[in-house]
């Protein structure tokens, strides 16, 4: 029997993997992927908790919203990365430190 707990554990795992990707990867694309992973972990949670809202399917609907938003975010993110690449000739975030004071 797959319980809610399994979903949550998997979701937590995915979140952690995403977090790790964000913090540790040296490639902006990979960070974007990490972000996607974290969003997906959240979507998984939405779907999993959706079982308590059988009447309106709020969870599923939110999941759909989130997927659409994530897609949009990825599109924007990729566009930014593309511009960053054009500007800096790299997408290693370690080398882009212009935000430093």
């Amino acid at each position, binding site marked *: 029997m797959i319980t809610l707990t399994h979903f949550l554990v998997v979701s937590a795992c995915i979140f952690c993997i995403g977090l790790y990707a*964000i*913090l*540790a990867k040296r490639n902006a694309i990979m*960070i974007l992927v990490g972000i996607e992973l974290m969003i997906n972990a959240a979507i998984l949670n939405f779907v999993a908790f959706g079982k308590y809202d059988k009447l309106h399917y709020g969870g599923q609907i939110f999941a759909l919203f989130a997927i659409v938003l994530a897609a949009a975010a990825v599109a924007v993110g990729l566009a930014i990365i593309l511009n960053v690449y054009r500007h800096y000739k790299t997408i290693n*975030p*370690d080398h882009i*430190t*212009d*935000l430093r*004071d």
Partner: protein
Amino acid sequence: MSGLPYISPIYASIVVVGLPLLAFLLQAIRGKKSTSGLFALVSIALSTLISGLFVLPQVWQEAPVTATVHWFTIGDSVFTLGILLNNLSALMQFIVCIIALPVHIYSKAYMKGDPGIHRYWMYLSLFCFAMLGLTVSKNLFMMYVFWELVGIASYLLIGFWFTKEAAVAANKKAFIVNRIGDIGFLIGIAILFSLFSTLDLVDLFGNEGVFAAGLYKDTGLITLAGICFFLGAMAKSAQFPLHVWLPDAMEGPTSVSSLIHAATMVAAGVFLMASIFPLFNANVLLLMAIVGTITALSAAYFALCQYDIKKVLAFSTISQLGYMIAAVGIGVWDAAMFHLATHAFFKCLLFLCAGAVIHEMVHHKEHTKLDFDPQDLRHMGGLRQYMPKTFVLMSIASLALAGFPLTSGYLSKDAIIIAAFEWAAQHGPGYIVIPIILVIVSILTAFYIGRLIFKAFFGPIRIPQIDQQAPHIREAPQTMLVPMIFLGLGSLFFAFSLNPLSYHQAEILTGFSVRYAFEEIHSLHLVIPIVLTVGALCSWILAWKWYVKGKYPLQANSLWITRGGEQFGLDELYKKTFVNGTLALGRASQWCDKHVLDGLIVHGTAHVVKSLSRAIYWVDKHIVDGLVNTVADTTYYIGHLLRWVQNGRIQNYFGFAFTIILIGIVYLIFR
């Protein structure tokens, strides 16, 4: 004086004083354009005329005539301008005129061709104005004004050749020494003013004045006043030890020396003493007698040791002035005035003759282009054959100076010496020293003037490079001779007294009719003239042997003579003590100003203030500001520490954000 219109002697005497002033102003305005001296000559001639015709005859033996106008008021005290004409002042005014006139005429020839002649006439007129004004001043304040004005005229005339270093040093010396006397005069005035609140000569010393009426207490202050006035007279009349300026004053033109430094200005001291005679009490009079005697003796000795013809005469003047002061000191101021009058003539003549000689010597010097001192007696000799008239005139004057019978000097000198013996007999045995010294001085006088005549006019000709056939030394011109002859006549007895052997008939003495405080001793009136005449004759025989026959027994460079020539180093002593002392004091006060007042106090204060402000600045910087800075620095350091957080790495930001959220969650969980 019938036939002459009557002119008030007051106005006449104002004209007498005013004319030279007018001449001075005109000459000052015309400047270089007028070199003839016409103004000066005409003015003094008119002054002489008016003084002789309208002032002296109307005042002589009459009651004093006075006139006073208000001058100014200070507080409650009124100061006046006034003219006082009595026997004394009218006589003195006339003497000044009658001496000044020949000197003016003489100057016309003597000063001919001098580039500064316009100044000469200007100064001479100024002098005449001041001197004539001095004689008739009614109050002491006015007299002081003229007293200083004659001083300035004398200053200007001594330094007439201002490119000569010696001349400008001499005129400075003359003025400053005279200033010492002037200070005395001023203090004297202050004393009298503070005692009697008036300076009027009539109010003070007139017949009904304070002193005649005995309305005063003979306090120490009166003595001090007497000494102060005497100090003034000492400087002006060149009394020891303030006589040092007079020999130096010979740097001026000889005509000036004859008028100012022999006949008139230097006699002003004696005149002053006579004018204020009642002021002096016994102590001051004794002091005057002593100072006068010392002066007479020392100057006669110094005169012996001089080689400069003018210096001999200068010391002779000092010596004779000593006589006059001594005469005032023993109370016979009428005799002093008598001697002043006779001395004025013969001493003026001596100087004019000397001037004529020097004039020719200079002429010779310029012609031969040799470098010798034209005034040095050692370069003269035998001048008798070149300048016979000058020789005769100078001899007459010399005889008068020596007090030889038939001359005017005989009368006046006897008057003084006899009175001195009578005075000494009255006072006691110790006082006899003074008349004896006066006799000795009289014989010395005969000797040194004999020496001068013999050295200059007799003996071998010592003039360098003289051409015996065509000498450049000639008799003085007419313009110079006429005034000299006039003065020569004035040096003989008949100018003053019809009796050549007794001074008692002298008009001047009878005119003053002073009552002496001592008794007449008749025997003296016979003995003294004989002693003096014999003494003079003996000294001349000796001088003849020494200087004409060349049997000179002494070493010319013996210490007594060379040191005497330098007045035993008196000048040197003054220079070392007073002059250098004053200069040192000046330097000391400058040092004090620079280093103590300015250096120590002002700059010291400034330094202290500056140091204090530096210290405060240090405190401000390190303590007050330090505290503020510490706070700022700490903040800054902390900020610096946190700064690395903002490293621009997007992932780190994520990490921090996440950590903080995590901490937040942990906090929420465990709170």
